[in-house]
């Protein structure tokens, strides 16, 4: 796991070096802050899902969740209160997450299906709620959450730092965190050893939803507008960041810091292609190649120590 992260950091450094040589515009304070701000949005969304993936689950509803949460928040802010909007987004996100959790733990619907179904349900509600309209133009103070600076750093970067720190402590240094890894490694063994699997699963899906709610506020503040499809382009990049960050879809392996590195790596790639004015069609292609490459490195490096002995599952 540690070596995987080291490879990734090396990848980030090599990419930075290459971009520095390729264009003068890359290695400037303002561009690096720009990359960090863009990455922070991806990270906020991906961090909650990382917890879900650690339990061998998946949350496909986060993009839709961001869309509905942002629209609900936008309406509440327009109705007069920024605080109300923030609370509404968090509550909306959390509710969707908990419903996902209940579907997985009580109805025993596989996470992929449960959250995929939720994606459609939430899209439907959002389309109905917004009826094709756009809500825009929010107070300056609120918008600072997305586009403002504090002591020279973009505000979302502080949120990213806070989530990383809290999440790091939560996953590494609390029983909850250890139990989440244990469930991902082997749910049945976890249950037999007395871990309250259902409660923990509800917790991670709830957290994933709540993080989508938080991310929706930052997106709203940054875009200064909400429309029904605001979240749709966000789900796949968030999952890509998790995979590139080395968290295994089979659960039990991975980390939030990995997801951060994944988010930064993918953001750097797009930033670099914009700076170098590389054509439109290549951007998704390169992202796809990086995802596969990163996961292949994991598979290869994890297999290596076992290669001498019996063939074991790569994961």
């Amino acid at each position, binding site marked *: 796991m540690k070596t995987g992260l080291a490879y990734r950091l090396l990848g980030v450094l090599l990419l930075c070096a290459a971009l520095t040589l390729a*264009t003068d*515009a*890359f290695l*400037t304070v*303002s*561009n690096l802050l*720009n990359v960090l701000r*863009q990455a922070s949005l991806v990270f906020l969304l991906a961090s909650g899902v990382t917890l879900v993936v650690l339990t061998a689950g998946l949350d496909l509803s986060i993009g839709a969740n961001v869309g509905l949460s942002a629209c609900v928040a936008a309406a509440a802010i327009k109705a007069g209160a920024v605080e109300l909007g923030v609370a509404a987004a968090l509550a909306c996100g959390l509710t969707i997450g908990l419903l996902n959790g209940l579907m997985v733990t009580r109805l025993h619907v596989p996470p992929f299906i449960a959250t995929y179904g939720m994606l*459609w349900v939430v899209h439907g509600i959002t*389309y109905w709620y*917004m*009826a*094709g*309209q*756009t809500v*825009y*133009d929010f107070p300056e103070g609120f918008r600072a959450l997305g*586009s403002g600076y504090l002591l020279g750093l973009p505000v979302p970067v502080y949120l990213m730092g806070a989530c990383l720190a809290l999440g790091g402590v939560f996953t590494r240094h609390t029983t909850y965190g250890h139990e989440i890894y244990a469930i991902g490694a082997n749910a049945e063994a976890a249950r037999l050893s007395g871990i309250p699997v259902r409660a923990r699963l509800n917790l991670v899906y709830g957290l994933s939803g709540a993080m989508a709610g938080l991310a929706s506020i930052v*997106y709203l503040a*940054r*875009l*200064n*507008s909400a*429309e*029904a*499809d*605001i979240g*749709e*382009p*966000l789900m796949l990049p968030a999952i890509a960041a998790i995979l590139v960050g080395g968290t295994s879809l089979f659960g039990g392996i991975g980390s939030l810091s990995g997801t951060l590195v994944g988010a930064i790596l993918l953001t750097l790639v*797009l*930033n670099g292609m*914009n*700076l*170098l*004015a590389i054509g*439109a*069609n290549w*951007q998704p292609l390169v992202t796809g190649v990086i995802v596969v490459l990163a996961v292949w490195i994991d598979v290869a490096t994890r297999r290596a120590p076992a290669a001498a002995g019996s063939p074991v599952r790569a994961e």
Partner: protein
Amino acid sequence: MMTDTRRGRLAPVVVLTGMLISCAQTGDTAGDEIALFTKNQTNPYFQSIRLGAADAARQLDASLVHYVPTRPDSIPDQMSQIEDAIIKRPDAVVFIPVDFQAMVPGVEKMNAAGIPVVNLTDRSAGGQFVSFVGCDDHRLGLDSGLYLLERMGGRGNVIILEGVGGSSNSKARVAGFMEAIARFPDVTLLASQPGNFQRLQALQVTENLLQAYPQIDGVMAANDSMAAGAIEALDAANRQALVTSINGTKEAVDAIKAGKLLASTDCNGFVQGCIGTMVAIRHLRGLPVPAEFQFPQPVVDNTNYGDLDRPDEERSCPSWEGLTEGLLTPDD
């Protein structure tokens, strides 16, 4: 009277609206059912079209059924909705293809079923239509681009924000931008990058381009949402550039009024919805309709936004006669 500027586009002939239309609709042909196919639930532009169509149907005493793909812009969804519609047999269909090539077989199915089809907004690559009602995306791009470059004094650096790669309207608009740029030798195109018609992507692309280029004087956005994203990026970076876009949504008008957006070339979804529906109903009632209906599409700036500033819900369709005057001149 109160609406006679109608964004300066629709000839000043709207005064007689209600009366003429109520004359046109008498008779036993009332109650026609029109099916309207739009591309998605999310883009405000299609909502404008739906509202315009609903108003025209109401005025002409027809009923309107909506078909919107469950997944935005989905080809298979629209294809199966065509099959549903053929079973339900509306009297006529007003059709915006989600893809101008891929939906041709769907159009042919409706042709085979004998349902008259009016092609709206995006010109289909094939199939038979009563009429095409829409705007010329290439000219939208060209007019929008020329306006920007003239206001830049014919010199400086510009960037282009493209729509969805491969979509016919993005391609045509960008080609229009390019043609405009080619007419000004002192204008440099720094980059043409994809924003996929989406605000967030346009915002991030603009942020990145602002890093790459210390001097950007103009931004050509292929729709209003992307222009809004670009404006956010410019504001956040404390940089100044003139921005133009396409579609003339209410949000764009507000940005024009706030001095943030220079102009939005208007494709007028609301009136497109009106005309498409009117053409279908007139065809059913045996009244003449033009085979081609392209109305003027002015550049909307702070001098002529007129009733674009009103929510679509408060607008009503102009009269057929007012619309066609000047369009169906004898040499048409």
